[in-house]
């Protein structure tokens, strides 16, 4: 058979992690001899739906969607199904009335990520900690799920409390500005035991704010976050941060493997192809940083 054509409706490039996901997808496409058409939705769901519909119109062999939100996909998925085009969801599950509308979802468990980092923090602080939380963009599903997982984890420890929580919009300057205010509101930072950032970028911003307040991040105020971007490993290596949960940016690879299997010998893939979420600590940070620098 000829080369497979795959359309990938990607969210955008709002974070370093997202850019890495796109980059990995391209690498995997060349490895698997797939013609990958990427459409960048600039963080808008309507653009992703438009892109998916135009992929259907072009008659591609498979469609990958990295859903920007969990809901609202039934219509376009139904069209894809009618056109007999298999659809793979990358890095996020959706809520749908009819799961048969898509072929498989390749994702990590975002609630689990929050849970993991929460448990880790509990261990670090001996179950006693006044935590400030830097939320992601209000209404975005990683923000919702990571918060949920983390809260589940600390619910088991009555002395662990989120005392302040604000949105830093997943950005470094957002994280920094919010952290600055938290520090001032909490007795110039002395009442804060740890900061939990929904992503690494905000975590890095928080580290800067802590330093500028004359405190030592990683010690005076513990810093934990999620994503596993290189700069966070570097911060851990420098002793400024205490942990991150890596979310693998290689979502397209497993999806392509499954698609090829489906096309060549009609193997139905598993409905949920789970990618690993791994906790990293300062102990291995330097080595991990060196390994990753090239990938991003």
């Amino acid at each position, binding site marked *: 058979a000829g080369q497979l054509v795959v359309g990938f409706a990607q969210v955008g490039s709002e974070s*370093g992690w997202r850019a890495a996901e796109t980059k990995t997808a391209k690498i995997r496409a060349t490895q698997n001899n797939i013609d990958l058409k990427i459409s960048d939705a600039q963080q808008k769901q309507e653009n992703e739906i438009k892109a998916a519909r135009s992929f259907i119109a072009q008659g591609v062999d498979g469609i990958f969607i990295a859903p920007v939100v969990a809901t609202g996909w039934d219509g376009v998925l139904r069209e894809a199904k009618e056109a007999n085009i298999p659809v793979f969801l990358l890095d996020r599950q959706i809520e749908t009335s009819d799961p048969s509308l898509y072929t498989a979802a390749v994702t990590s468990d975002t609630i689990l990520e929050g849970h993991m980092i929460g448990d880790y923090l509990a261990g670090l602080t001996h179950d006693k900690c006044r935590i400030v939380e830097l939320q992601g963009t209000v209404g975005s599903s990683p923000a919702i799920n990571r918060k949920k997982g983390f809260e589940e984890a600390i619910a088991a420890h009555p002395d662990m409390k989120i005392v302040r929580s604000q949105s830093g919009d997943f950005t*470094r*300057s957002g994280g920094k500005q919010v952290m600055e*205010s938290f520090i*001032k509101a909490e007795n110039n930072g002395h009442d804060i035991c740890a900061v939990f950032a929904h992503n690494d*970028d905000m975590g890095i911003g928080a580290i*800067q704010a802590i330093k*500028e307040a004359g405190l030592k991040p990683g010690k005076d105020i513990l810093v934990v976050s999620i994503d596993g971007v290189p700069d966070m490993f570097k911060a851990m290596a420098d002793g400024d941060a205490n942990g991150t949960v890596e979310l693998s940016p290689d979502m397209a690879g497993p999806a392509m493997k499954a698609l090829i299997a489906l096309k060549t010998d009609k193997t139905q893939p598993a409905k949920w192809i789970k990618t690993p979420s791994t906790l990293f600590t300062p102990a291995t940070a330097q080595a991990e940083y060196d390994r990753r620098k090239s990938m991003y």
Partner: protein
Amino acid sequence: MNAVSPPVRPETPTVPTKRRPRVAFAGWPQILALAVVLLADRLVSPGFFHVHMVDGRLFGSIIDVLNRGAPVALLSLGMTLVIATRGIDLSVGAVMAISGAVAATLVNSGTSLPLVLAASIGAGLLCGLWNGILVALLRIQPIVATLILMVAGRGIAQLITGGQVVTFDSRSLGAIGTGAVFGIPVPVLLVAGMAGLTLALTRLTALGLFIEAVGANERSSAYAGIGARGVQISVYVWSGLCAALAGLVVAADIHGADANNAGLWLELDAILAVVVGGTSLFGGRFRLVLSLIGAAIIQALNTGILLSGIRPEYNLIVKALVVLAVLLLQSPVTRNALPVLRSGFRKNS
């Protein structure tokens, strides 16, 4: 022509006053609004006005307001002039991203600091020139002309950074965002410097008059011999410069260029600051200092929200209501109704 002597009139009912009439200061609503917002901040956070030194830098919430407000304050300087010519510049956020991206990538490639600054400011000027040409020469409506760069500019910035947050370690570049002179944060000094420069440029020369004239009535101004197009181009260039500086501040602050997020939606805050400062979107009269106060109001509000501990879901609603209240306060209608605020001249009925 001096020979033209005033004809003697037997009766002149309205003799123009010899003394220059004292024009009433028109900024009371803004100052009042700022005071109210600051007071509210003090209520939600008792230590709001408390300032002490940390690492040779002034430290405190009120300093945060000035420091965090710096990018919007810088933008609002250029934006004020653009709006005074009846234009608008939506591209400033994207230009910030570009200048930050240029600075970060260059500094990482080992270029010397003066060159880095020159290149990134140059990029801002170039962007401004492009906007100016679109508006003044190609006669594209400002909102759309600058929308083009708003969309494409962020793409250009990401092209420069390769979609990554480009981190740098340069202390000297970082100082623009986090340094301090005599305890005062560099961004605040930068705002003060740029404000002084902009004021001097517009008020010590005739440029301010030309800008106001062109904004109020472009046709009449051109007929009076003003090079209206030149004036328009120069305000967009100035806005580009201000945006470039704001971009430098933001990049230097986090020691990294975040092309996707730097300056995102700041154009709206800048426009808001200008309008809250009392400059009309229909062009004409502008007030730089009041625009800065507008920027301070917005930042005092943002900081207050962060300090207050309300849930982030409510941020926007609080912001909307406060903005509306400030606007209502300075509406000519309310001002006429409340004699305390009355200043300048009333519009008819």
